[in-house]
């Protein structure tokens, strides 16, 4: 009898916990992000830092003033094939390039596309 009561309590607790998780998941439609790199990157080079995950977007930006070319790149982690690579002045993002690759584990990097050392910020977005 005691065992039955304990099992029922466990069931109730688990259902409650799973319900809370479901609610949290359903309300967590917003996007989260991780910042990476954020330090000085040599001229015309990629940052040694990266972020991996089921990423939905990646951006590279130059936090200072003035014109600095920045690049972003996202590759399929397993094959190494590029899914997105773009460059721009001061800020660049992967656009909608990763929309069709949701279930693929990816690695995002950023780079400095200028002739001088500059700080480059990377931001990887996850659902």
């Amino acid at each position: 009898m005691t065992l039955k009561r304990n099992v029922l309590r466990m069931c109730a607790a688990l259902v409650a916990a799973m319900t809370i998780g479901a609610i949290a998941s359903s309300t967590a439609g917003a996007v989260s992000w991780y910042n990476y790199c954020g330090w000085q990157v040599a001229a015309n080079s990629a940052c040694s830092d990266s972020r991996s995950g089921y990423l939905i977007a990646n951006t590279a930006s130059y936090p200072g003033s003035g014109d600095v070319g920045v690049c972003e790149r996202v590759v399929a982690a397993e094959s190494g094939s590029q899914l997105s690579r773009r460059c721009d002045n001061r800020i660049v993002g992967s656009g909608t390039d990763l929309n069709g690759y949701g279930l693929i584990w990816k690695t995002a990097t950023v780079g400095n596309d200028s002739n001088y050392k500059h700080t480059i910020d990377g931001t990887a977005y996850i659902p």
Partner: protein
Amino acid sequence: MKRKTYALLVAALALLAAAATGTAFAVGAVGGGDSDQEPAVILTEPTPAEAFAQKFKEQLSVTAGKPNGIEAGRVGITSRVRGANPDGARLARNSPNGGGIFVLPADEGVCIASDSGVEEGCYEEATVSASSVICAPGLPGDQVEVFGVAPDGIDKLTVVLADGSERTIAVERNVFVYRASKEAPRPLEVAWTTAAGERRAVPAHVPEDFRDGRCANPADPTP
């Protein structure tokens, strides 16, 4: 008998709990699982940026209204963090892929978005600005594209290539597009002549190693 049933039930619940925990670990691994990385935050505001160049919006004649709008889902990440407004989109021209390229008013300057997704970027300065696409699902893997914006009054530009040759391209409603094979010389600059007859140029933002790496075929489900 009942005890066995309960034991099985407990085991099943334990498995469920383990599966849930495993999922949590998998999510936690996103971003490398570094303990010192910044915590994830909810994306509710655009990132900080430079002061808004109001004259840029005016020069690009961005007007409200949606006569030839773009679907909000086609607006890319840069435009989103820059606060681009799809409801204010103005059709500028057609993309080489087909579909439209749009100019959108943004919190700081303007952004470009396109039906094909190839052309996407944001610009704060009231001058010619160029972006490059080296790999994107809508762009053939053996090609590179340079696109961007030009203020009113500039109807043609020159793409300066690494071998010293030049290609003249048209500006249509403030937007230009240059697409070429990756076997062709690297685009270095986008140049134009001012009303005063001065030659100006901005970088095309095509990196030296733009030919490196394989670009995934979007038709491949496992790139």
